[in-house]
């Protein structure tokens, strides 16, 4: 595809609003699960959409917009994490959960919270790999494209992270049921 779908100004505003409505949960959630702060996630998501608005002319299709937004959300979240110079320590205890999407959790809320806390302790690369795998449902090939990371590294991060989570859950008596 070569032509922008977003050329006429009036149409641009409408399509920008549409893209935002369609992708805001994805962008916000990538930042939220990575940074573990609603305020920071909101800031990052806002920056991502402002950046989209500046770059609308280069967006070639709705699918391209989704891919672009995911990639920028990932990069901005990592940048923000580095800028804060702190690993996202678990600050969820006294923070209310944001509104959960309609199709969300059917799992154990306590276990879910524990898992989010444990993922927050992972290093930046495996943390983002896990978010893209289990939030975005991307397969390892897609994750390697988004993160520009070798496929073998992605698979390694997934295996090691899962093993680590199993071990930590078992230590807390939250093993396989």
């Amino acid at each position, binding site marked *: 595809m070569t032509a922008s779908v977003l050329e006429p100004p009036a149409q641009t505003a409408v399509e920008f609003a549409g893209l935002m409505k369609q992708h805001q949960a994805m962008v916000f959630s990538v930042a*939220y699960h990575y940074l573990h702060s609603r305020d920071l996630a909101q800031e990052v998501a806002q920056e991502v959409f402002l950046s989209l608005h500046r770059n609308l002319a280069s967006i070639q299709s709705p699918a391209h917009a989704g891919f672009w937004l995911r990639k920028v959300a990932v990069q901005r979240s990592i940048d923000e994490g580095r800028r804060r110079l702190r690993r996202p320590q678990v600050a969820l205890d006294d923070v209310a959960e944001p509104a959960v999407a309609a199709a969300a959790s059917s799992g154990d809320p306590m*276990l879910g919270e524990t898992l*989010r806390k444990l993922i927050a302790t992972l290093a930046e690369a495996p943390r983002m790999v896990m978010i893209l795998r289990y939030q975005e449902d991307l397969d390892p090939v897609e994750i390697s494209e988004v993160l520009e990371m070798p496929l073998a590294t992605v698979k390694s991060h997934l295996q090691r992270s899962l093993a680590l989570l199993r071990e930590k859950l078992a230590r807390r008596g939250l093993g396989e049921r």
Partner: protein
Amino acid sequence: MDWLEQELRSALARKEPPPGFADEVAGELAGGARTVVAWPSRVTGRWLAAAAAIILIIGGGVGYRRHRGIEAKRQVMQAFAIAGGKLNHLQEHLKEVSQ
């Protein structure tokens, strides 16, 4: 998919941003446009006025000190001239006495 992966999908399910998020982004976009049109903004104008006042005060102080320096120099030169005149007069008087 095993139980842990299912739990991970639930734990990391997408979440909606807080209500009003879209309005905030729209506000940022509108605010950015206003900033371009209305330069200098009220805040920028205040800073410019404050900077101008500071420059005037500092400049005035420097000018006043320079003026005082020139005046002091003029007075010293005048004192030298008077003293020189008196010395000349005294020297002539001494010559007359000695002759």
